[in-house]
């Protein structure tokens, strides 16, 4: 096409300006800020080199937050992929009412995280919450969902599972529907049991979709902030403080801009590693002729 590069550049300009102002500049600025000490405000910022980073690595709160983030990401991703897979396998057939069941299962995913959090905070309430009321109804002892340090992070996973399992469910359902029917029919003729077909045909062919779902969910879980902020505030103690919450506390409550920026840089590096895996996955998918 003989249209000039100038035209292309003109068309890209608005997007490039916004990108430069809102992403490139902040990224660079954040990197710079991570190298200064801002105890007395930005005006007296002093160059401290890598001090913020060495401090972070020795800070038990930072390590705790990093550990909580990893634990949350692993638990959330694994449970969401497993539950999404179970739902997709169940729903991947004709049955009466399917047109109503699928959108109902998707509904939690479109809700605002704040609405989700509002409902679950009420459900977790020790005295009057729905969950403990249900436990009492079957004569089980009530549980301190959000105030037991050993349980609080799991409670957060439970909320995340409810909200985002629909997402993995839809990805895996699409994957199941892309498996050719005749493969199953042929295996059935040969006398393979449903369980055997699941292990030898369905799951191996579903691996790319399983990986994609796991990757997308781990990227999102790694960012978690809203739910922690509104459900536990990072507590009890430090039990549910994730890296985003740690950054929020340092940057927007203690105004320690240098340390908060260093935390941000560390998070970007970790995210970058995840991005490399993701990009590799996409590029490989394209050379295989697309998903």
């Amino acid at each position, binding site marked *: 096409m003989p249209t000039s590069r100038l035209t292309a550049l003109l*068309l890209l300009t608005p997007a490039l300006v*916004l990108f430069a102002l*809102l992403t490139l500049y902040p990224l660079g600025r954040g990197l710079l800020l991570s190298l200064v000490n801002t105890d007395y405000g930005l005006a007296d910022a002093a160059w401290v080199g890598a001090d913020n980073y060495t401090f972070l690595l020795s800070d038990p709160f930072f390590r705790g937050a990093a550990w909580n983030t990893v634990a949350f990401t692993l638990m959330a991703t694994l449970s969401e992929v497993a539950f999404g897979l179970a739902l997709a396998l169940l729903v991947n057939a004709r049955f009466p009412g399917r047109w109503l069941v699928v959108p109902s299962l998707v509904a939690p*995913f479109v809700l605002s995280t704040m609405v989700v959090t509002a409902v679950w905070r009420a459900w977790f309430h020790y005295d009057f919450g729905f969950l403990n009321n249900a436990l009492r109804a079957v004569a089980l002892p009530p549980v301190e969902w959000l105030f037991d340090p050993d349980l609080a992070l799991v409670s957060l996973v439970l909320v995340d599972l409810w909200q985002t399992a629909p997402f993995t469910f*839809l*990805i895996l359902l699409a994957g199941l529907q892309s498996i050719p029917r005749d493969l199953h029919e042929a295996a059935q003729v040969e006398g393979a049991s449903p369980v055997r077909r699941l292990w030898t045909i369905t799951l191996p062919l579903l691996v790319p979709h399983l990986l994609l779902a796991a990757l997308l969910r781990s990227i999102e879980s790694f960012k978690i902030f809203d739910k922690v902020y509104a459900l536990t505030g990072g507590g009890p103690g430090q039990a549910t403080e994730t890296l985003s919450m740690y950054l929020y506390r340092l940057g927007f409550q203690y105004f320690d801009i240098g340390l908060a920026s260093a935390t941000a840089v560390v998070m970007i590096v970790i995210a970058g590693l995840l991005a490399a895996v993701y*990009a590799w996955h996409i590029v490989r998918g394209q050379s295989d002729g697309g998903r």
Partner: protein
Amino acid sequence: MGAASLRIGLIYAITGVMLLPIVWMVGTSLKPPLEYVSTTVDLIPDAPTLAHYRALWADDILGKVLNSLIVATGATLIALAAGFPAAYALARLRLPRRLDGVFLIFVLVVKLSPPLVLAIPLYQVLRTIGLLDTLPGLILVYQVYCLPFAIWMLLGFVRDVPIAYEDAARIEGAGLARRLATIVLPLITPGLVATAVFLMILCWNEFAYALLFIQTPSKFTLPTYIATLITEDETFWGQLTAIGFLASLPILALVGIVQRGLTRGFAGGLK
């Protein structure tokens, strides 16, 4: 036959459990406080009341709905206006090969960056240009996520437009602007609508930036308003569920579109 009906029973049971929190939300929003501050399981209100909705009305809920609408609409329009030309340029015009790769990395970095990571420098950007604590400022920072998402989605739709149509029009002397207006835009209208729906939901639900960059309560969007209600009182559930239900209504109406978008696979960036 037994296995099949067992499977269907299981599906209905799970669907019921998944819907319970939403059913509870609607039920509680209609209950007087005496009914929901209780130690028994009860989803249906015995004496339904609209008191919580009336209390919201008195608390200027309309103002918050309006703020949310302004921010979501504004951010969506800007993302489409800047995103469509960019997507067209990336899909059609001869760009250096490397630029494609650079764009992919840019989309990935943005998608992967937690909102909090960019928050401190963005705070300073907004303060410098005088848009801190304003709705236009929030619309601007939402472009961090909206713009790459819009470009990503629109790119696929532009690529679906047969290039032969445009070639034919060019031979007849139609310039770029004319081709965009008479061929490309009409053909990707469904794609534009789908993209707009996703962007609206994304902005309607966004919390972190609204929390950090808006301080004046009268400028709160629905999620930040809900957050203040959550932390204000332990069992403020009547109003909380009423506002939650109101905020969810327009979005639940769009579930079908979201579902189709997700199965097509282009909506991975929604959350």
